[in-house]
């Protein structure tokens, strides 16, 4: 489904990604781990089309289509979804309005009619329960005054509503307590489907106790230096990144 070949990207002239190669098939869950500053978040932003980053070399295709040629919104409509690490607030715009606008943009692209306010309200209420968010959140401004955990749940709710082909989760576990982690993980597991690929970006292995990946990759200094199965994450937890000859003041076990 997703094919990344020799991807290089920079921001303000500084090279961050230095040749990423990655193949993800439909139905698979991949985890990318790595120390701070290794380029994990940059990879997710580049895939989603954040124009702050410049792709200097390489190819990315989604089901054979060149993703890099498409603007952000077109990638989204093709099924690329990014759950943000730090979702931004949009004051005064209700979550409900935002979500309905997004869902209708997607439906329009798929040649379907707009969902009216009543239909959408019903759907949104159901999905909000799935991530344990009070439907009252739908009336509040987008991420306005949400706690860290609420923001993350809101992101997963959006993924559930938009039903993407490729869901990229950028540090979705950061800042969550155990209970919230459980709720978010349940939401992500509900996303798992044979026709969907999930790419999880995380610093810590604990998320992988809840969402068990098919593959784990270790990203260091803009390159994937090691790939393996679930056991690789456990090994990292036990030995830290230092085990791979990487200097890091944190370990994967926090």
């Amino acid at each position: 489904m997703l094919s990344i070949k020799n991807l290089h990207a920079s921001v303000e002239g500084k090279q961050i990604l230095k040749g990423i190669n990655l193949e993800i098939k439909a139905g698979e869950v991949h985890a990318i781990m790595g120390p701070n500053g290794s380029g994990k978040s940059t990879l997710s932003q580049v895939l989603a089309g954040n124009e702050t980053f410049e792709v200097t070399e390489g190819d990315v295709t989604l089901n054979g289509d060149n993703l890099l040629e498409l603007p952000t919104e077109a990638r989204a409509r093709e099924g690329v979804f990014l759950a943000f690490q730090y979702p931004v607030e949009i004051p005064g715009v209700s979550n409900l309005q935002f979500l309905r606008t997004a869902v209708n943009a997607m439906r329009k692209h798929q040649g379907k009619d707009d969902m009216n306010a009543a239909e959408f309200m019903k759907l949104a209420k159901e999905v909000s329960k799935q991530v344990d968010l009070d439907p009252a959140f739908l009336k509040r401004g987008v991420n306005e005054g949400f706690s860290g955990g609420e923001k993350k749940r809101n992101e997963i709710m959006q993924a559930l509503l938009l039903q993407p082909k490729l869901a990229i989760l950028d540090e979705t576990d950061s800042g969550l307590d155990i209970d919230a982690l459980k709720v978010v993980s349940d939401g992500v597991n509900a996303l798992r489907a044979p026709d969907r690929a999930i790419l999880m970006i995380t610093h810590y292995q604990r998320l992988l106790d809840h969402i068990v990946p098919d593959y784990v990759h270790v990203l260091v200094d803009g390159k994937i230096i090691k790939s393996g199965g679930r056991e690789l994450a456990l090994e990292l937890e036990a030995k830290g990144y230092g085990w791979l000859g990487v200097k890091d003041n944190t370990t994967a076990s926090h």
Partner: protein
Amino acid sequence: MATTDKEVRELIKRDYEHGFVTEIESDTFEPGLNEDVIRRLSELKQEPEFMLEWRLKAYRRWLEMEEPDWAHVDYPKVKYNEISYYSAPKRPEDMPQSLDEVDPELLRTYEKLGIPLHERAKLAGVAVDAVFDSVSVVTTFKEPLEKAGVIFCPISEAVQKYPELVEKYLGSVVPAADNYFAALNSAVFSDGSFVYIPKGVRCPMELSTYFRINAANTGQFERTLIIADEGSYVSYLEGCTAPMRDENQLHAAVVELVLLKDAQIKYSTVQNWYPGDENGKGGIYNFVTKRAACIGDNSKVSWTQVETGSAVTWKYPSCILRGDNSVGEFYSVALTHNYQQADTGTKMIHLGKNTRSTVISKGISAGRSSNSYRGLIKFNPGAEGARNFTQCDSLLIGDRCGAHTFPYIESKNKSAIVEHEATTSKVSDEQMFLCRQRGINPEQAVSMIVNGFCKEVFKELPMEFAVEAGKLLEVSLEGSVG
């Protein structure tokens, strides 16, 4: 940053929707201003003697005054002798008695503006007094209003029919020599609306006026006078557009609201005068004096305005809170783009006891525009227990525009309480990225973010206008992101 700027530049490049010129024959005065022009104007309008005297007095004062230059705007001086001071659509008969008699070309103009007079008016239950250039063309829904005792007519008609009301209240809120543009307006005003709501009457429908500047080189100087007698209520809507022209046109209007005891007026404006092209050529100079006097105790006035038009705006709808417990409110959205300049805000003058005022101002700047809020909150010694709350928010789109806030607070009463909050924010790249990542078009994203920013003001608008205002913002922002 790069993304949003590029987007902004493209979004801003939209065309002005209302840029068409109506080809109808007009009676237009030769350009120039002197006492003879004023006499001719007054004669043409068959005005009583007091009106002519009032105009001449204003004109003489105007000659002694100087054009103000304190506003944060910059424009070439207006050449007052190159403006024509009267332009009326020519009709075979005198005045049309019904819509059927109105020049069809004129009606088509209204259609293009999106105000099909009959249908829209009927559906919405709105009486429209349409001012086309300088003369009120037709007033609909006169009958149900007359039944309620409400007077709603062109001010030129009121001068003849209700001279005692006009003489008593005209200039009572904005004196003829109040300021340079008010004095000019007092001397040459051609038409406008007059409203009188009798004691204890709740006006049975929302009153609406559409203004439009059509003829080239014509100044439009409309004058509106609304009197709400004791215990009455009226909601008045005003919408404005003007065709596209290269040269700048002057619009110097005066609006006076008079509120007696327990009266309430809600005055809403959606202003979309031609703002000039993307290089700053053309556009309307909108120099307007709007003021309400809450003379009676417990009276309440609300100004709500959504302004997206004009090349230069100079406008401060104000409230004089004379009656005890009177309330003044000002809710404003001002959007500027390209080379538009706006210096706008309000004055809340607290004279009576326990008077209260609220100011919510939302300024949105895009392109290379400049958007200033200027507000005066004044408490006189008698304003025991008076309160004001001001909130002034600015939103920037791109990084070549400017937002300024000039708040003035003068308090001569120790018991008065004033609160002022101000924020400046940007439509951020992160917000845009979030919206686009969810499949939303950049234009739609900006429009949604801006609408969210204006929410507190939009909810004050009458339903019908709120929808229109939202659409207007959307249209005005087209091209400000790409």
